[in-house]
């Protein structure tokens, strides 16, 4: 190698370093501005709020992912902006080829290492945030494997049908309402099922989503910790009125809930008697929606409860706070 070539190499290297310095500087400044903005200004406003444990968890996860994604996006966009300005071909000049760089082992290794590290980090974080908060408000199917630490939870059955959501409270005689009422500071176990096609129960403010499948008891957990209104929408296309399949509800204080539920149980007793006895899934009648539904044999179903429900003076079921040990299917 002649000394001229060496000098040329050093010159090119110096030029490359100055590009890198610029880029790193821009990236550092932008990241230093954006990260606190995300943490302090954006985090509190991220969906779906913090009404329940799962909503708060989703909000936290979204913040973390945004804080990871922001520097990556800033780096890529800053690089593109820099390259597109600095490395453009001057207009009107004859076409000249660029330097024949076919690869750079260090750059390639660094790229693969960094992206793999980010991905593995996101995976470990996501798995922790899924398992520890008992499924993070997501659907866990009929035999949930990540369950809440508390031993008592309020079971609420969510029944999707074309095109309305109804709720049955097995703890209070299995009465059925169209309004989702929940006590505050309580662990809730949603048992979502469908009478016809696939729906998806999306209680936005609760951070809960679970598909309602016919013949399946789909369980999702969350813990309420704030009073407020709830909007429920269907998020799986279920036919013509899918867009109009929404309802409302409220998280109220435990005593208010108790009063409401007892009153409803009494008031609705005549109607409850006409309903099919409470079960975790129902087989729709041949007529489909609105044509009545019948209990299916399933591991949760208890024959004695069924009989009491039929014959009792008010169709009343005994308290059905499910113990964890009992729930294993």
């Amino acid at each position, binding site marked *: 190698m002649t000394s001229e070539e060496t000098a040329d190499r050093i010159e090119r290297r110096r030029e490359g370093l100055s590009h890198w310095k610029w880029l790193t500087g821009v990236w550092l400044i932008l990241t230093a501005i954006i990260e606190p903005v995300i943490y302090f200004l954006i985090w509190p406003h991220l969906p779906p709020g913090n009404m329940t444990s799962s909503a708060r968890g989703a909000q936290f996860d*979204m913040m973390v992912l945004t804080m990871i994604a922001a520097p990556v996006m800033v780096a890529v966009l800053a690089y*593109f902006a820099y390259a597109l300005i600095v*490395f453009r071909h001057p207009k009107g000049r004859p076409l000249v080829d660029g330097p024949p*760089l076919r690869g750079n082992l260090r750059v390639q290794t660094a790229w693969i290492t960094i992206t793999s590290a980010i991905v593995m980090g996101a995976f470990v974080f996501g798995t922790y945030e*899924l398992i520890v908060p008992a499924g993070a408000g997501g659907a866990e199917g009929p035999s949930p494997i990540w369950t809440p630490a508390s031993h008592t939870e309020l079971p609420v059955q969510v029944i999707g049908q074309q095109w309305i959501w109804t709720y049955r409270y097995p703890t209070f005689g299995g009465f059925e309402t169209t309004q989702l009422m929940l006590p505050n500071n309580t662990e809730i176990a949603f048992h*979502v099922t469908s009478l016809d096609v696939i729906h998806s129960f*999306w209680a936005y403010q609760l951070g809960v989503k679970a*598909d309602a499948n016919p013949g399946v008891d789909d369980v999702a957990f969350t813990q309420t910790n704030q009073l407020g209104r709830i909007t429920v929408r269907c998020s799986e296309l279920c036919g013509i009125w899918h867009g109009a399949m929404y309802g409302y509800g409220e998280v109220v204080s435990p005593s208010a809930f108790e009063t409401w539920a007892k009153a409803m149980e009494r008031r609705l007793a005549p109607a409850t008697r006409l309903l099919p006895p409470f079960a975790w899934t129902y087989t729709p009648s041949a007529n489909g929606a609105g044509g009545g539904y019948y209990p299916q044999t399933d591991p949760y179903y208890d024959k004695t409860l069924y009989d009491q429900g039929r014959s009792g003076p008010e169709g009343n079921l005994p308290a059905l706070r499910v113990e964890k040990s009992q729930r294993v299917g």
Partner: protein
Amino acid sequence: MQQSVLTALLGSAIGYLVGHWLGNLIASGYPVVQSSGYNNVAIVLGLCFGVVGWMVGIGTMNYPLAKLVGREPVPESPTEGWTRFFKMTLDHKVVGMQYIVGVLMFFFTGGLFAMAIRTELLSPTTHYWGPDTYLQLVSEHGTIMMMMATSLVVGPFGNFLVPLMIGSRKMAFPRVEAASFWIFMSGFLVILAALPLGGFNTGWTGYAPLQTEAKQGMDCYLVGFAVIGTGMILNGFNQIVTIVNYRAPGMRWTRLPIFVWSMLATSFLLTLATPVFFGAVYFGALDRTVQTAFFVDAHGGSSFLWENLFWFFGHPEVYIMALPGFGIVAEMLPVFTRKPLFAYKVGAAGMFGVALLSFFVWQHHLFQSGINPDMRPLFMLTTELISIPTGFIYLVGMGTLWKARIRYTVPMLFCLALYFNFLIGGVTGVYLSDVPVNVTVHGSFFVMAHFHYTIMGGLVFAFFGGVYYWMPKMTGHMLNDRLGKIHFWFMFVFFNFTFFPLFIVGLLGMPRRVFEYAPRLAHLNDFSSISSFVLGASFLIFVANFVWSIWIDPKPAPQNPWDSKGLEWQVPTPIPYDNFKRIPIVLADPYHYGEPDALPVADLGGELGLASVGAAGPSAAAGAGTSRTGAGDGQSRIVGGGPDE
């Protein structure tokens, strides 16, 4: 009468009537038919026979049928003139251009449906269409666009460019190639036939049991996807066989253009994933016609089965819609940066990494379905892993831009737009893959915006970049530069204006496929809707540009207007029927920009205007080339026979 699209239409009409009659003969006595008044057997058989009639009418069956009955088949002669675009042809270049018009028919029809959807969403409560029509529009839009996107690049550019890029005179199976195009177009008729039959209301995902109870238009969805799927499989294996066996001497795997690598990876997905879906739509058709219960819970089936089968195909399919876009941009970048492709091997490996992983991620669509929750961490891992090989395409792009000489031509602008759009699409994909966050974003407009950013922002932008880039070689005319830039900026800006607000709308709680939404989301939806109308109008600029540059004010394009080193640019324009006078001997990869000592990409035999290499150069290098590729010698013998052997 010569066979053309007219005889094909006639054949499909006859076929439909025969099938419909047969279906009525078989099933009109079924209790379910008598009680409902709907005979799905007649519709399904009518559609199937109609497609067969179409394929017979266009002439794809002539050769195999003649062989079958032991007659000497009449060889198809190369046809000339504009009528050849309406006939079955063995010229891969004509098939490629037919595909361009075909996919644009799909795209513009689907785009009109999209604007109709956005019209309904202008107001949270006032309805322009009503819920039934709205769902038909949503379903038709989704299905047509998905059908289009599976072939958007593999069809036009795969068929047109792959033989040129690898130095072959034809695709491996020219008749299969023609059949794959014509069966693709019959899918267009089948899916539009759903509208007079009452449409279908399941969206493009077609979830059972809603599918089972849907109107007769659903049969068009099932048969339509089977038909399109057949075309995908045919096209896929044809590409694989061509790429593996028809490379010219010296075209080693390390010299293969990156676009061909992307076609190869995509073709594996086409051939391996589509049969699963073919089975699924077959089950669905059986459930609807002869009352089997594959997907009916009450009779021993399961709605999960459709979800599993659908997404087992559906997720590889998503990458069928991403990889070709990557291939196009990686192919164009070196030309407009005047630099070799950076990290070529990493890019090719990335495409195969994506292709392989795409078979292991399908249950991330079912995170909230209640299906095996213990698998959730695994599918979260595989889904997030796929962002590593996808990231390679950014490594390739960013490395190629480093110290480049960037020319801002229209194709280059589309190429850069892909990097911008796909960045947003990819990063939002990580949110979706994270199960706790997925609880909120699943099934919302967030997902919808995400996949529009990847498919439209990625593949469709790459497609239009490809059209501007290769049009001079295809038609012999440059598209107008100024109109092209106006088209690009309108499309890019209003694409982002249309879809970015929908991320926010989704995060604020708006589910997909609804016709009513919370009034507080009206402003964002209006902004998106109005932008979508401008986005739609931007394609009129493209059409105007096309008409202007090809017919009104045609300017002959130079042989190699972009100064590319690609093999496809070294042949004269218009490209002769046999592409190469003799099979070229490939001497180098097409990316040796800035390497003054490199050999030209291929030795074309001197007559075809290649910058001549020294007298001793090509033969010596050719010897080296052939000796190092095992396929070399056999190759020239196979191809030497020409298309009518």
